[in-house]
Each structure stands twice: as structure tokens, then as C-alpha cells.
């Protein structure tokens, strides 16, 4: 069971949260000029990292706000949470 720290509410059980995928994917500007490849890249292609992964979570059964988590996708160890727009922690890769 993951213990996730919401930057606003503190540490809570994983069942209070919903996962929202890879973090730091900015919606491209000037979308009318994007090629099909650039659209595919934005919409579908993911890093799917084996190791330290930065991802979006939503505190669905709490404050309902989105925030970022850095988590190891092999050990599932969470190295930290941070608010959107902040610079995140860099955990060890174990």
C-alpha cells in the first residue's frame, strides 16, 4: 500500500488518490501549427520510465487538487511530493 503525501493535506493512504499519468507534459502552444507527429507525441507517447518517475496524482477523496510525486517504478518507493510549478526532489535511484 502506498503512503502518499499530499502537499496540502499530508500523508494519506493510496486509496484516497487517483493517478493521472506522467507529469510535466506541457500542452503545446500554437496547436494549429502542430504536425501529426507532434500531436501524437503530446497525446500518446510516454517515457514510461523504469526507475525514478515523475507523475501527477489527484487527491480525489480529499482536497481534490493535483500535485506531482516522484516515485521509483520498480521499488514503488516515493521520494517526495511537490506542488505543480515547483521544482521537485531528486531521489536516489534505488
Amino acid at each position, binding site marked *: *500500500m502506498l503512503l502518499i503525501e499530499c502537499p496540502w493535506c499530508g500523508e494519506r493512504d493510496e486509496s484516497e488518490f*487517483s*493517478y493521472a499519468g506522467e507529469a510535466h507534459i506541457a500542452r503545446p502552444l500554437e496547436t494549429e501549427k502542430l504536425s501529426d507527429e507532434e500531436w501524437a507525441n503530446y*497525446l500518446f*507517447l*510516454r517515457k514510461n520510465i*523504469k526507475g525514478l518517475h515523475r*507523475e501527477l496524482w489527484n487527491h480525489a477523496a480529499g482536497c481534490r487538487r493535483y500535485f506531482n510525486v516522484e516515485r521509483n*517504478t*520498480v521499488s514503488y518507493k516515493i521520494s517526495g511530493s511537490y506542488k505543480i510549478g515547483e521544482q521537485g526532489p531528486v531521489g536516489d535511484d534505488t
Partner: protein
Amino acid sequence: MSKYSIFSLARNAMSFHQNWEKVWRSPEPKKQYDVIIVGGGGHGLATAYYLAKEHGIKNIAVLEKGWIGGGNTGRNTTIVRSNYLWDESAHLYEKAMKLWEGLSQDLNYNVMFSQRGVYNLGHNLQDMRDIERRVNANRLNGIDGYVVGPEEIKRAIPALNVDAGCRYPVLGASFQPRAGVARHDAVAWGFARGADQHGVDIIQNCEVTAIRQENGEVTGVETSKGTILAKKVGVVVAGHCSVLADMAGFRMPIESHPLQALVSEPIKPVLDTVVMSNAVHGYVSQSDKGDLVIGAGIDSYTGYGQRGSFSGIEHTVAAIIEMFPIFSRVRMNRQWGGIVDTTPDACPIIGNTPVKGLYFNCGWGTGGFKATPGSGWVFAHNIATGAPHELNAAFGLDRFTSGFLIDEHGAAGVAH
């Protein structure tokens, strides 16, 4: 290699079954092959088997980082069906179903394919509309199936709770009589034996660490057992295709999630078919040993650890108890997880890649086992000819750029 038959059984009985020959050789890798298959699961072994048998390419190596049948091939809930909604996937899975029906004879290895039927339950009006639509689409594609009502379901599955007053009442189901289950380990072993008989080298404990390329063409792979050269490399790795794509220098529209399953202690025969439900989200069958084989949905977050979350177990068991209150005191024996590569449209990616000579067959998500022979069949054709088979032409990586997605999410049922 000797053929398995009643006579070979009698002959080996004379020596108290001490002298059966090994089912496949375990050779050291050669320096060079015509084709390298990365991944020794069911799909990879089937690809090698059909490459050798149908396309006459015998100089093949199958590289497996663990052992044969130790990945998702040995971790699934063994359900086989072909009742997918859209034409592209229906044709692909139905090709697999036709191969399943003759597979034990073809491989001379009993894969214990049991066409005990699969029920997909509907619990509300929209479920029933979707079921009717899917059954009609299936029948237009020549796939068997019909819609059944609660009375008929109750007759076929007495243990299922169809009371009108329960939280998720059973309003009906789709039934595919030709669907069923197969013994997953036997599928891997049977294909391994078949491929080996055609001269394919199966190399276990051999992990690929890099993909060699020159001028945009693949030239071989680096492995934990040294460099192995080949002009054609087929990657069939459930759970790690993003890692392999990263080695080759491109990205995939894939996210890897843990999916878990569990089996109960063996109990007396109680369920002679397969029951799946999308709304309560669980599926269950009973193995020949008597254990209930239970599965449900993936964990929401991505992960490469081959284990599932505790809340996942809770959801799974809750769904099964909702359908079968009689199972509430059955004890669970084992629980495990596998990594499934999910795509945005819940359909696999089979075909060519930006690197010449490098082919990918991946992204089968939660339901790849049922497609094992069909997947190998089309991928073997793709590798041998360099161009997709008509059945996998629609499943190329380019569909995420062109927009021609095959949206099976929910259509075929999220529960596999």
C-alpha cells in the same frame, strides 16, 4: 525428437519414465542468426515456431532474460475468447481462436484447450445494449455468440447470484460457446518444443542490454551472453517494450502497469465455464485442479514491480463475492502480479518500427494470452516478408499519428 503418442507413453512406462528426452535443447548462442526474437513468452515462441514452420526460416534464436513461461505467459488467468467489437481486432483474435482449435494436434503437445464458454455479464441497461451490439458485430464477423437472459444464466451457473434485489443485478450476458481456457504453461512449453524441433535455438537467462544499429538498420543485439548478430530482430516483450524501444532510440505510446491475479485453495467442481463482468470488474474460472482462478483490473499507477497493490486485491475479491456470495469463505492460496503494457486504445502494436529490420509486437495490455497463436502467426509473416500481414496491418505504430485508433477500451470489456 520423438513424437508424443500412446506408444511413446507405453515405451517410456517400461523405463519408469526416467528416459524422456528434454522438451527443448538449451544451446549456447551462435555468433549470428537470420532472425532474433527478443522475449521467450508465448507470443515470442509462437513467432519463432511459425517463422520456422510456415516461412522456412530455421536459423532463429529466441532470447529470454528469465525462463520460458516465467513472465506474463505464466501469470495470466488463461482465458481465451474472440468476441471483440471492432472488425480489426475481431479478425485478429478470431484467427487466434481458429489456431487454438487445432493447436494441440499441430504442436503434438496437449495445451489443454477447453472450450467451456465465456459469459460476459451485463448489470444495467447500457451494459445490455453494449452486449447486444457486440454480439451482433461478432456474428457479422463470423464469430459465435448470443445474448442470454438471467434464467438461462442461472441454469448454466447455479452458483452465480442473479437475485433481482442485489446491488448489481444480472440482467443478461453475452455467451461465446467456443471461448474457454487453455493451460498457459503448456502453451509456452508446446511452442518451445515445436520451435526447437524446427531448429530454433531457445536461449534462457539471456537479457538483451542494447540493440545494435548502423545507418538506421538493425545489426544485432548486445546481451548478457555477448553480442549476437542478425539482420532482423523481433521484439516481443510484455512489460518492457518501452525499455527496449528506448534502447533502439524511439518512444512508444505505452504505459506499463501491474496486473494481479489470485487462485484459491482447490475446491470441488462448482464452475464449469468462465464468468466475466465489466461493471463489477472481475473474472473467474475454475481450473482442472479445482482452484478458482481470479483476476480483475490493473493498478492505476505505472510500475515495473511484478506485484499488485493491496487495494487491488480488495477490489478483485469484492467483485467476485458480489457475483458469487458462495465463494466468500473460500481461502486464497496464492497471489501474484505481472507487468502489462497498455496502449491508449487497448489494442496491441504489431509491425515495423522507425529502425529497418526491427519489428515490435507489444502493447497487448491485459489480454494478450488469448491471442498467442494468432499473434505469432501474423508477426512471423511480418518479420519474414518485412511487411504486415493483412490481419495486423491496422495495428501499426503509425496509427497513433494517423489517428486510426481501434478503440477497444470498454468495447470489448476492460476485464480480460
